[in-house]
């Protein structure tokens, strides 16, 4: 399925990286909610896509995100041992290891793809993770993917 | 046996020489070699710190850097002031990048790189952690029976870094005392200020603090105060007579270094341990002098 890349209207003078974030419903999405409730501010470059478990994330989603204009992709899941579905996050962990390597072989820096365990009460960790990633990407510059 | 680099600092070369003599004697006997850091300089403590803190740190950092260049073994810093100054420099440089920059710049001009690799150790740690109670016990040939000791830590080796022992309930000196066969007495001042710094400034306050300490040790019926710091030793020792006069209390009590105590228990004589250089020579119940 091909996706048209639709650039957003709000044209900011300085370039801002786009981070697509896949968060699991139980830990990292909950952390994001907590961040909201506790008014913990973080970079708006990150846009959440909610899935029930980080184990739902098909590596193809990540590839698609890069292909359609993401400068970085962040996956957030429950800490090892804490998966709401027992062991989904372990699959994510292993897929991410392989995917990260493959992306680097394809010239995509490892800072652009991150898997982080962010628990339901880790609003601060979420903040630092997102802000750091945004900074890293600003340093790396746009990915502006061009296919064949 | 592990070998160490050695940072004597100014006082062990001066007023604190009994400390150095006894330390070297004891370590030699335990088969530990101490190599002086080549071309070491002031640790940057006290006076310097109050004039230019950053420069103080740089001074300390130079010693650490020299140690790295020497061979990067652990540094043994017996003087509490030096121990704190070096530990503090290491910690602060690691924590504050801008300070690190200053240090790098300063040392860089002398072509001296600083990586922060070496560890700063206090002899007490080395004795109890590296050598270990068992070897120490074996080395004791003359347990100091019925010798009542008031262990005194001073401020610097426990605060703010509790690497040597807990700042609130320290016990290592007690342990060492027991190993030496002596009896540690319990009193609440063992980690309180000796007044040292103040006797040079606000003398009345400094002396009051010393008095509190001596009084407590006396009323705990100690035969001697055993300390870890040249400044404490000096401060607690030299003002005793004056305090006796001013307070009309008997505050006379020997103040010795833990290395001297251990040395005695290891059967060394008072000259080797420079105990004869103390104002008040502790009186031992057990026969003094060389190996029995």
């Amino acid at each position, binding site marked *: 399925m091909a996706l048209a890349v639709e650039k957003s209207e709000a044209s900011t003078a300085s370039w801002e990286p786009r981070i*697509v974030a896949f968060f699991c419903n139980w830990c990292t999405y909950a952390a*994001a*909610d907590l961040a909201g409730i506790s008014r913990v*501010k973080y970079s708006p470059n990150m846009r*959440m896509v909610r899935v029930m478990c980080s184990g*739902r994330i098909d590596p193809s989603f990540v590839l698609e995100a890069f292909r359609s204009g993401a400068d970085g992709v962040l996956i957030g899941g429950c800490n090892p041992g804490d998966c*709401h*579905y027992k062991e989904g996050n372990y699959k994510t962990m292993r897929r991410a290891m392989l995917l990260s390597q493959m992306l680097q072989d394809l010239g995509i820096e490892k800072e652009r793809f991150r898997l982080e365990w962010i628990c339901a*009460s880790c609003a601060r960790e979420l903040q630092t993770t997102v802000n750091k990633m945004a900074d890293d990407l600003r340093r790396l510059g746009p990915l502006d993917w061009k296919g064949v | 046996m592990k070998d160490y680099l050695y940072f004597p600092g100014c006082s062990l070369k001066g007023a604190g020489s009994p400390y150095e003599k006894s330390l070297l004697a004891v370590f030699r006997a335990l088969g530990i070699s101490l190599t002086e850091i080549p071309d070491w300089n002031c640790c940057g403590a006290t006076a310097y710190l109050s004039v230019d803190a950053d420069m103080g740190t740089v001074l300390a950092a130079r010693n650490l850097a020299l140690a790295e260049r020497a061979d990067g073994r652990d540094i043994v810093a017996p003087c509490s002031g030096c121990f704190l100054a070096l530990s503090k420099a290491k910690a602060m440089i690691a924590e504050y990048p801008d300070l690190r920059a200053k240090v790098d710049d300063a040392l860089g001009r002398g072509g001296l790189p600083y990586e922060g690799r070496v560890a700063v150790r206090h002899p007490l740690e080395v004795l109890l952690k590296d050598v270990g109670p068992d070897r120490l016990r074996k080395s004791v040939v003359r347990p100091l029976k019925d010798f009542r000791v008031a262990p005194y830590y001073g401020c610097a080796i426990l605060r703010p870094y509790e690497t040597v022992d807990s700042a609130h309930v320290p016990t290592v000196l007690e342990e060492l005392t027991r190993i030496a066969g002596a009896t540690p007495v319990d009193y609440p001042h063992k980690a309180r200020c000796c007044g040292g710094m103040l006797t040079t400034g606000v003398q009345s306050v400094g002396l009051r603090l010393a008095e509190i300490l001596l009084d407590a040790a006396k009323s705990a019926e100690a035969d001697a105060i055993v300390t870890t710091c040249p400044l404490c030793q000096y401060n607690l020792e030299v003002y005793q007579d004056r305090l006796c006069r001013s307070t009309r209390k008997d505050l006379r009590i020997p103040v010795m270094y833990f290395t001297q105590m251990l040395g005695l228990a290891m059967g060394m004589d008072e000259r080797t341990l420079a105990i004869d250089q103390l104002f008040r020579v502790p009186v031992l119940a057990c026969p003094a002098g060389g190996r029995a």
Partner: protein
Amino acid sequence: MTAAGEAPRIGVYVCDCGFNILGAIDVPEVVRYAGGLEGVVLAKEYKYMCSDPGQDLIKKDIREQRLNRVVVASCTPTLHERTFRRVVSEAGLNPFLFNMVNVREGVAWVTEDKARATEKAKALIRAGVRRVALQEPLEARSEPVNPNVLVIGGGIAGMHAALSLANANSGAKVHLVEREPSIGGNMARFDKTFPTLDCASCILTPKMTEVKIHPNIHLHSYAEVVSVEGYVGNFDVTIEHKPRYVNEDLCIGCLKCVEACVYRDARFPNAFDLGLAKRKPIYIPFPQAVPTKVLIDPMDCLYLKLGKCKKTCVDACEKGAIDFAQAAVRAQVKVGTIIVATGFKPFDARRKPQYGYGTLPNVFTALEMERFLSPTGPTEGVPSLKDGSLPRKVGIIHCVGSRDRNTNEYCSKVCCMYSLKLAHLIRERTGAEVYDFYIDMRTPGKGYEEFHEKLLAEGLKVIRGRVAEVTTSALTREEKGHLIIRVEDTLAGFVRRIPVDMVVLSVGLEPQSDTQQLRRMLNLSCGREGFLQELHPKLAPVSTATDGIYIAGACQGPKDIPETVAQAGSAAAEALALVHRGTVEVQPYTAVVDEAVCSGCQVCVGMCPYDAITYDADKGVVHVLEVKCKGCGVCAAACPSSAIDQKHFRNAFVLAEVAGVI
């Protein structure tokens, strides 16, 4: 085109949420933008979408504008997704043709810059619209709820919850599990409760007995929950009963065995008295213990330790209840809901060595003082010094371990009040002069400030300042032989040294040390202080992220008895609501297999932790057992043929969302 076939007619509703969203996002601009998105027939702004008028607005449009898709951009779905799904279904639309976009927690509350917040909100709504266009109608599955309830912890919270449930006579059986030999928890240790000073055991003991005799309550004392499997409505629980070495059914609690024990005198520390009092190897924890059954501590009992003893206890027992052969036994129970009421553990005062606990004589924790003050406690209600004399001056130090960067930063909430209570009781029993050292005197609550006033009137000496240390380092003759409390009096502005005979440390409340294991067993999460995390701090204070599991009392955070009881009640109500409904809705986010594509490679079979996928060797394809599927989607991500997809989280939906946010 939509799943339903007809072209999407999407309504987008952006919520101002008062000023919460309006203040941080240019809502009119967002609405204008949303209106122009493909498939959107109308976009509206409203003050509070979740309010009745807001809900009616949506229903009206669905009917009049023939909307077949609805997007609401407001708070997080965890808060109101249910609400709006109900709304659209009331208007005749399938609830799963609704999509919620999180622009409050997700944007408004976490973004500094309004322009960028607006841009982000647009992106999220764009994604939401693209997604909803593809969403398909689904039927929520419902599963039966086992009426029985498991209550973990037999303190005041657990007991109250259990009784509320049991008294409902809903046909529900309550399994109350307490790991100590007796129920009662910490409250059983108290003599009086603040602010009313009514006798704790007078209000507690009847409750304990009622729990014991209630036909609907099955009490598992001296037992622990070792495993919980399953999900809301159908939990399989394993409970392990520790051996008492006394047959509970036979023992009548006459205590003849205790008198007869070969140990003439009690010499073993009694856990209930925090080791302040002694007991024999065979004992009951305390006189009012429920169940009133003795037990034997295998670490102390000669026979169990060494295998030889006259076993005078056995002879003494007419019932022949003593059974040295007893071993741990496991029981299986099925329940539909679980209430966690595991309480707290007091802060370990040794972690503040400057206060001398464990090193200086006559320094006690508040809980120890509670025992001293209890008529059944080690000193029969009159606190005395180690030498047996009465204290003439007592210092109570607040915030021990609390509001402290080195230990716990949070306020334990109950300490100020219990300290005042202790001050009153100590003064009443010993006539001692009592000093309270506090940072801030926190007395919110009915009658609490009045109690504070009463204590001040009684002549309580209060000194404002964090105590630096408790020491025996006397500087004056008067100080000699006393505990000296050094504190900076922040009101007087100088350092005080106050000699006292006894020090009470008002330790804070901490999570039970095994909270982490419990959390994992039940699939809950913890806040950063380590207490169990509620679903929502305000709107779902006793619910958790795991459906069917509720929390009550101090396991959720420090709280006093009234609050604890209130929480226990509401947890019971939540559980009962489920029991009463009889069924639970299970999200239909299950996996589906396209059998025309599936190659039968069986990669998915090994993926499923619930064994919900089976291989059909004849057809050479796999099937998903919907009832077993929990909807994690791991199999879909793993399926090499993309033959498996997840309902409501289909690849296409997720990818549409991805395209939208970029």
